[in-house]
């Protein structure tokens, strides 16, 4: 609503000349019209304030570009996390762990850049991340965050696949999600061997999680500073 208020104020200042003008009948009608527009704007804003906010990035799920940008956003987040881990791994990491986290870093960079190129001019901008809740010097903290990112990534792709309309993108999403699931299993086994597909993530029907974008973005929001607006979900 803050942004909406800004917008209303902008509208008012633009219409300043009307306020200053003599209240001729025609001007009065214009003013009344502007007022009605503001009321409509406010009403619309209260119902769907996400639509009206001009800051941040917008994921418009009306077509495949929205879904791909959603994936691009998540890959940006994962890449930023692993770049930070790989550049200064926790002292508790073994050599093998350092090597594999280095690999994962580049997997996520490859995913991120793939989406950037595939989207071209339709790509959203770079997201500003917030990793203040992660202690990058502590192995357990890093592994816990990695597990959260990977399990969330898997659930996100699983839930988004059905939204895609283009065959090539359905295949690509499938090609990426299994790599994310391999990461998830690896990280989980580092935390507790044998937890690669335990009941936290796989239900009694043998199914992994599938989350809708709003669930995923809500879970990811603590790691993202940039405002993400979702429309046409």
């Amino acid at each position: 609503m803050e942004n909406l208020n800004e917008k209303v104020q902008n509208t008012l200042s633009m219409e300043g000349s009307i306020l200053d003008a003599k209240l001729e009948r025609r001007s009065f009608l214009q003013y009344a019209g502007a007022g009605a527009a503001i009321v409509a704007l406010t009403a619309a804003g209260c119902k769907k304030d996400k639509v009206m906010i001009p800051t941040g990035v917008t994921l418009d799920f009306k077509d495949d570009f929205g879904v791909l940008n959603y994936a691009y956003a998540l890959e940006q987040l994962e890449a930023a996390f692993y770049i930070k881990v790989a550049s200064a791994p926790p002292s508790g990491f073994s050599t093998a762990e350092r090597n594999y986290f280095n690999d994962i870093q580049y997997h996520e960079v490859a995913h991120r850049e793939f989406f950037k190129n595939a989207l071209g001019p339709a790509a959203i901008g770079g997201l500003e991340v917030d990793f203040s809740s992660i202690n990058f010097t502590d192995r357990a903290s890093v592994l816990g965050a990695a597990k959260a990112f990977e399990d969330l990534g898997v659930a996100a792709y699983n839930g988004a696949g059905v939204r895609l309309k283009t065959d090539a993108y359905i295949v690509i999403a499938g090609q990426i999600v299994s790599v994310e699931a391999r990461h998830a299993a690896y990280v989980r086994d580092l935390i507790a061997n044998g937890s690669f597909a335990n009941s936290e993530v796989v239900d009694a029907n043998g199914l992994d999680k599938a989350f809708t974008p709003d669930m995923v973005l809500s879970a990811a929001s603590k790691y993202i500073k940039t405002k993400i607006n979702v429309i046409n979900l």
Partner: protein
Amino acid sequence: MNIVNILEEIEKVDGEIYERLNPRRAAMKDFFNMGKKITLAAMPLALGSVFKKAYGQSTPTQINDVLNFALTLEYLEYHFYNHAVVAAPGLIPTGAPIGAITTIRDHELAHVNLLKGALGAAARTPLAYSDFDFTGKGTFPDVYTNYLTFLKVATAFEDTGVRAYKGQATVLKGNAVLTTALQIHSVEARHASHLRQMLAANGATGLKPWISLGAGGVSNDTGIAAVDPIYVRENTSMQAGVNIVGINGNAGVTAAIAAESFDEALTKAEVLAIASLFIK
């Protein structure tokens, strides 16, 4: 499984799903009357019956074909692990190894039951252990007496499963069944990751949880020539027309990283050719 989500997804494809599922329709009364009596374990069957009643005889043939294809593979995987757990004493070390294989076996059984339930009367003839030859017609003669061989075949099956589901995804485009297939698919990928780590810990030094580039750039990173067909095209570096190697100036994205970052799909024919080695 969240049935509300599934119904919402179906609605995007079939705008009349709620009409079809209307409780006033006699066909649907039974399901809604079941109410709280449905337990989680009973859900696959219940869900399968909902779809059957809602669509009558019109469940698209291609979708049933995909589900039956998946069911065949799940039978194969289930019997492979189940025999190892119950009928090959001493094969799998106690503790974490038998724990992991039992977990995987249980997931494969759950997948069999889920797919059978979804297919209902359209489900293929059930497959028993005796319908399979897990030596691969003599390719892996000690599969149930040599733990390393067992792990190699297990890894091969899981990597195949991951690739097989991917290959069918476009047939299920926009259908709620795709979500379920993806949910199975990522579980198979988790299995593959763990089995590769088990294999690495038992002699296949350097084998990664993800499929990497084989020696000299070949597509098979396991070094087991007998499973070459399972890894065809895994050394691909072009994805949807985008070259992944060194993408946008990222020198760290090597050919090996490019191969690892994207798992490839197998066609149905390729999967059936692999599976036929193990089906009598």
